């Protein structure tokens, strides 16, 4: 009897591990972002970069300033003075000031709302995207990106990272040359390591924004699961007791 429960549990656990393995190798080409939602300091730094470099064009229309303050342990004054530069109310969502028509004119397409960017593309993708801008004289905006070729966005963080140029792999005759890697032409105000961390922080913040409930659900989850396992154990004792009648 108990052996069978153990085997059921092992089966369920195995299925979960298998699924996790499938999950893990979903986008094998991209390096792991390595961000950590529990790192509140990183979330704050990420928010800071977002509100200084990104919110000019990108909205977070499902995210309220007040929620950011609550979840990141910031006061209303912190948020209203250091993050909110649009004059929106504390309870309002984060809406960029850029008129959609202008954006259409400047970039050819409206900058997307980033509320669900990490849900849609994954943290690894966002992290890689922020690391993969390079100068491209052929592009109308002067920039290009190896993760999203012909991206419509000029690189907003170039002051921080510096300017990257592509290094071409030796091409076979007849083939188009492929980019092998990017190298730093002019250093930015941050060292490459610092920039990696900054990109990770922004990614972390955007992952938080894509599902703010993630912070709560993990802290509740462990207690719920433990409670249910405890209940299962009690139910098992009860079952054994009653089934003494059955021969």
């Amino acid at each position: 009897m108990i052996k069978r429960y153990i085997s059921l549990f092992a089966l369920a656990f195995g299925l979960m591990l298998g699924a996790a393995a499938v999950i893990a190798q979903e986008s094998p080409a991209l390096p792991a972002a390595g961000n950590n939602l529990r790192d509140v300091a990183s979330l704050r730094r990420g928010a800071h970069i977002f509100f200084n470099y990104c919110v000019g064009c990108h909205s977070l229309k499902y995210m309220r300033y007040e929620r950011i303050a609550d979840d990141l342990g910031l006061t209303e004054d912190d948020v209203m003075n250091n993050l909110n530069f649009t004059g929106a109310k504390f309870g309002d969502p984060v809406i960029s000031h850029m008129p959609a028509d202008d954006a259409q004119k400047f970039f050819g397409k409206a900058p997307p709302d980033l509320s669900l960017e990490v849900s849609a593309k994954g943290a690894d993708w966002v992290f890689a995207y922020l690391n993969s801008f390079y100068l491209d004289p052929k592009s109308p905006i002067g920039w290009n990106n190896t993760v999203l070729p012909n991206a419509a966005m000029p690189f907003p963080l170039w002051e921080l990272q510096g300017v990257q140029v592509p290094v071409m792999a030796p091409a076979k005759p007849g083939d188009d040359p492929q980019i092998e890697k990017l190298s730093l032409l002019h250093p930015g105000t941050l060292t490459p390591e610092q920039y990696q961390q900054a990109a990770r922080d922004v990614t972390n913040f955007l992952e938080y924004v894509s599902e703010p409930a993630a912070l709560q659900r993990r802290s509740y989850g462990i207690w719920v699961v433990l409670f249910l396992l405890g209940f299962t154990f009690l139910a098992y004792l009860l079952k054994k007791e009653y089934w003494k009648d059955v021969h």
Partner: protein
Amino acid sequence: MANEVVDLGRRRFLTTTTSVVGGVGVVAAVVPFIKSWEPSARAKAAGAPVTQSLKKIESGQQLIVAWRSLPVFIVNRTPSQLDALPKQDSRLVDPGSNGASADQQPKYAQNQTRSIKPEWLVMVGICTHLGCVPNYVGEMKPEPFDPNWQGGYYCPCHHSRYDMAGRVYQGVPAPKNMVIPPYHFVDDTTVQIGVDPQGAA
């Protein structure tokens, strides 16, 4: 067939324990569902404090602003309206707002004029009977519903009447004075509804 003696005590104990633990689980599971009916973050954001300039409200005029979706009356009362207030006391249910209506206003508005500054009335315009919005009838002249009318509010639903401080008259269905919300003056000509003055709890 089973001949061994069943330990009824153990059985009863386990049944009770499992039921209690299961019951606790069910109750805990019900809590999020009940909580989901509370005002959402969007409703709360819409209920944030409202700031209103008083510059354009002439003496004797009323402006209605929405706070938490409720109509809030802001009235610039005339000196004669203010003079009439103490004279109504004998006709009111709770003239001092310290009886049935003791909880209808913050402490700092529990006075004759039910306000921080005498001329400015800031009040949630909801009749305390069944929740209609009373009409502002500011002129002091005989009205069909009261030949001795001294200005105030008249509820169209069930004819409750209030004076110029939102205090309810005797003999009408409404039981209490209308509610004064928390508010304070940001400066001489700006009022913020939803936030107490500094120092007042």
